[in-house]
């Protein structure tokens, strides 16, 4: 038998040929796009969320985090924004004003192109200098006192001319029972004090004076003495600007004092469906809240939005103000970024100038380029036993924002399409112009 020996040279040749053939055959699987089949990394853009997830404000602020995550997840699922996936960074300011600035710095250092957050005006004012120094954008969705305008903030919540003043109109009108003695009760910080300052000016225009005025620290729980003061003042209604967990103590004290909502209704500016879940229905039913949105709004757009949110977060979750304004702000930011084709602050701000609108669950909102505030419907809701609201009054059309109502801040105005803020006489919110 003859054996054919294979020479080293021919074996090497065959080996090389076989290797090349194998490499060619395997390469589509192994080296897809020269990447070993590694899927291309999605480009990312960081967005900050500054919401207290622990502490007394967590009860309200956590839902804003959820609605923002919900919005970002939807944007990401639809392919992202300008081809980038949104990476949300949400450190916890723990309801402490001193931590807001620190956490803002943290998210801005991480490269956040926009930040959604803050709850109290104290927290917003604490971070504002940092946003102005770094020229970043803060999207603030909570109702606030006005008397402020920064080109680095987009304000999505109600200002007093969209909330406090229409509330007074309603209370002193036929709908509210022609009330004459309004007691102004608030937490002791800038929003309640400024809102009530504006309220007093407005009441004076109507020839009225408040029945009384009282402030308590944030987190205050014992409102027994406050209720005694209200009763002693002979007030026929209360305009309540108490914020956070303090409302638990307030309504418990009102209930204990057997205050009848039909005779002395309390109209709250900072209570929505989310806060109602911590309040006992028997203590709050029949009282009112002033807002721009309620979950019970009958529109199809709202029903769909609520169903989507509940489908994602649980069927017993609720939506309310400021969740809806917050959702609208995310959508307005998205529109602005798409219009600008960039995440850069100045480009996005320029896109605001074009006038952006969004059909939100609570109706159409328009971002006013002059003030960087949004137009809002005013709605007054009566609290039901099922922790929802019956809408008893609604403005005919969205109300334009006026951060500087002339009755309280004469000479002040704002137009970011021109000169920015025009300053009037210095105003002391304790009443001295």
């Amino acid at each position, binding site marked *: 038998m003859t054996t054919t*020996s294979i020479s080293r040279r021919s074996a090497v040749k065959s080996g090389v040929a076989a290797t090349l053939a194998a490499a060619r055959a395997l390469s589509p699987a192994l080296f897809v796009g020269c990447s*070993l089949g590694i899927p291309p990394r999605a480009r990312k853009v960081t967005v900050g969320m500054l919401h207290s997830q622990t502490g007394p404000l967590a009860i309200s602020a956590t839902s804003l985090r959820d609605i923002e995550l919900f919005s970002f997840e939807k944007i990401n699922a639809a392919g992202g924004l300008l081809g980038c996936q949104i990476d949300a960074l949400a450190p916890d300011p723990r309801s402490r004003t001193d931590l807001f600035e620190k956490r803002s710095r943290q998210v801005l250092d991480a490269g956040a192109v926009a930040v959604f957050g803050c709850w109290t005006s104290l927290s917003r004012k604490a971070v504002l200098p940092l946003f102005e120094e770094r020229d970043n954008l803060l999207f603030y969705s909570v109702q606030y006192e006005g008397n402020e305008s920064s080109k680095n903030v987009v304000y999505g919540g109600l200002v007093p001319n969209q909330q406090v003043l229409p509330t007074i109109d309603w209370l002193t009108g036929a709908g509210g029972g022609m009330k004459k003695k309004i007691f102004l009760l608030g937490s002791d910080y800038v929003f309640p004090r400024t809102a009530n300052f504006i309220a007093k000016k407005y009441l004076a225009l109507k020839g009225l004076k408040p029945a009384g005025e009282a402030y308590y620290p944030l987190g205050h729980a014992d409102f027994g003495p406050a209720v005694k003061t209200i009763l002693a003042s002979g007030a026929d209604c209360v305009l309540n600007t108490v914020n956070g967990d303090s409302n638990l103590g307030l309504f418990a004290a009102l209930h204990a004092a057997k205050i009848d909502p039909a005779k002395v209704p309390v109209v709250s500016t900072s209570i929505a469906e989310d806060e109602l879940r911590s309040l006992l229905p028997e203590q709050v039913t029949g009282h009112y809240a002033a807002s721009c949105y309620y979950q019970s709004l009958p529109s199809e757009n709202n029903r769909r939005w609520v169903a989507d949110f509940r489908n994602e977060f649980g*069927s017993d979750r609720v939506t309310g103000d400021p969740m809806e304004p917050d959702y609208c702000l995310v959508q307005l930011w998205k529109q602005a970024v798409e219009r600008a084709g960039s995440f850069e602050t100045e480009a996005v701000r320029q896109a605001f100038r074009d006038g952006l609108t969004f059909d939100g669950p609570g109706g159409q909102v328009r971002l006013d380029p002059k003030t960087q505030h949004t137009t809002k419907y005013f709605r007054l809701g009566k609290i039901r036993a099922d922790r929802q609201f019956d809408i008893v009054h609604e403005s005919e059309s969205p109300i334009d924002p006026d951060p500087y109502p002339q009755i309280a801040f004469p000479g002040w105005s704002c137009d970011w399409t021109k000169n920015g803020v025009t300053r009037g006489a210095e105003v002391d919110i304790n009443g001295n112009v």
Partner: protein
Amino acid sequence: MNMDFSWLYEIPTRNLALLSIAVFVGFYWLGAIFLRPILRQFVKHTAGSNDIVGYVLSCFCVFYGLLLGLIAVTAYQNVADAGSNVTREAAALSALYEDVSRYPDPYGQNLRWLLRDYTRYVIKYAWPLQQKGIVPEEGTIRAEAFHDRLLDFQPTTPAEEILHAEAMRQLNHFLECRRMRLFSVRSALPASMWYVMILGAVLNLAICWLFDMRFLTQLVLGGILAAYLGTMIFLIVDMNQPFRGDVSVSSEAFETLYRRMNED
């Protein structure tokens, strides 16, 4: 110090297996072509050289096989332990959810929401981070939020006191399991083990180059050995980090729990 093999986990598993085999076989074949003639010089004139090389190789393979086997078992054990931790964490979370469901509202409702929020975060945000070898931090905030809210509750009846004590016990167990999960995210074989393993594989193949046999036979037999070594190394790489690769812990336990929470 752990070696950073992060990029390996981005390769789809099938491709990673093929790549590992191709690297080992390619290395062996290239060595057979370029290094074998040099190495062969050491045993060329030794009578019965194949017997000697075979004896050395079998001794070496015993030690190396033991090493690979033990490492593979250790890596698998790491994955299994991490899996057990995850199951225990989900079970503790489920028990806690049941406990707080008995709390009076509004505490009960708030606590349930917070636990659902935590579970959702673990599935949607923590798991993808863990799969990249990153320890997810924001879950701590959610766990703290729940802890704070639970501590707010003041029992008013003996039944509530018992329930609250049990919930606190479950909470501590849950936090312990959670911490264990976070610790295991970065657990991996130490760098020294990888050095010994790779050196062993190279020496194993180098000994094979010393055999005196037909070149084609050398390529085929050595190639088979190299392919299997490549497969073993792939397996260990895949199991190296408990939350990465195909052989890893899944979020199934949390997903099942979240579905059940949402059905309630």
